């Protein structure tokens, strides 16, 4: 079972799980903060809407619904917009 950290908490995930799903299954639904400060989570689930952007291993603004969770990933959600 791969394990990733979400906001510094270690979470184990089933192989084949996307990062967006790992975050939702961990009970977090606030993925990013919009330019006017409102909370957002995934909408389209297929890499089109960019609402599920999070920081992974220090790289900001990655679409979490298009990436598979890989062992050791460090995910940070809801950072203030750059």
């Amino acid at each position, binding site marked *: 079972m791969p394990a990733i950290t*979400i*906001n*510094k*908490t270690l979470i184990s*995930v*089933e*192989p*084949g*799980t*996307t990062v*967006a*799903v*790992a975050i*939702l*299954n*961990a*009970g*977090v*639904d*606030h*993925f990013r903060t*919009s*330019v*006017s400060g*409102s*909370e*957002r*989570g*995934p*909408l*389209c*689930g*297929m*890499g*089109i*809407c*960019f*609402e599920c*952007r999070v920081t992974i291993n220090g790289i900001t*603004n990655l679409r979490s*619904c*298009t990436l*598979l969770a890989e062992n050791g990933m460090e995910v940070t959600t809801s950072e203030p917009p750059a």
Partner: protein
Amino acid sequence: MSIVETNILIVGGGPAGMAAALAASSKTDASVTLVDDNPRLGGQIWRAELGKTKSEDAANLIAAIDSKKIDLVTNAQVFAASTPNTLKAETSTGAVEFQYEKLILATGARERFLPFPGWTLPGVFGAGGLQALVKGGLKVENKRIVVAGTGPLLLVVAESLKSKGARVLAIAEQTPASKLNKFGLSLWRYPSKVKQGIALKARILDIPYLTDTWVTHCTSPRVSKGETRTLNDSPLLTRRLSHLGSVTLSQKGKLRSIDCDYLAIGFHLIPNTELASILGCQITNSFVSVDEFQQTTCENVFCAGEPTGIGGVEASLVEGKIAGFAATGQFEEARNLFRQREKTRRFGEALNKTFALRDELKTLADSETLVCRCEDVSFGPLKSFDSWRTAKLQTRCGMGPCQGRICGAATEFLFAWTVGAARPPIFPVKLENL
């Protein structure tokens, strides 16, 4: 940057793209390359569940592709067409340039979303969007879910959520029952569809299917500002309680609220035409124009499946085959499929007529409701403009990372604006890959 040379390049690994690849590879001297932005083939309709392909049809096609000399490039997002006969894609390991002789676009479709108060709350998903997340491993057991919007996808999504243990409280379909019945009666020409439909409906008979019904707004639970909840005993997994709490439906003119955890809402499908647009292919009424051989107005560029008209999986398969045969000069084989295509197109047309959007859906957003979710542009300021271009210049509507893919389709319906041509890069990419 790595370079891939191929006779036939196919963009999109859904039904149309896979069918095109197989048809093209039946001409043994042609090299065929299939590129897709997902980790696995199948497109949206046959998206793998936790990495495993569940659909038998999809598994058969994928096995056939594996047995042929077809080069697969997955996890690659095509973003530009800088010189003739080349496309650029971004992968996790850098950029790839594809050099092709013939190109087949099979870029599929996405859901149409419409704004209403509360639609930006976490917990509001696309209908297909929630299904895609479930296939990615999202646990929905005992979650209370309302499925809403329009189109046959709602039934498919409701059934799949129910099969995963979700409590689907209602399916809200904006189309009136009379139109649905007429559509149902017209299906006698498609016995396989009738069989599928009846079997599907039988599995969700216990879910209220409400016609003439749509979501007017949704709200989050009342909490004091800044209140947080600790999850999994970890102070680091906290959230402010701004998420979906209840959905209000207009049902045959009466309002009723339903408490729920998730809303899955989508208003049928719209084509992904950005790549066709930057290549200079003619687009008529939002769809890519093609001739009888699925050839676009650009020489050497073909297009198959949803971008040429929303028609469902059978239409995509037959158009993909025709494009694959025609792109490799096998015109007789292509011609043999014309009649079959006619039938699938008729089905698509009936679908689009049945699930056409009603005018009441234009009145849901209030002046504060966001229309552009990337740049947070609300309905109030937008409605004073007369075109997409002016609105874009004045408000930044459509200028965020989704490049107008969500708000463009909404404003086409709300204000009858025409969204302008796409510009490269058609997806945000790293500077080093440009």
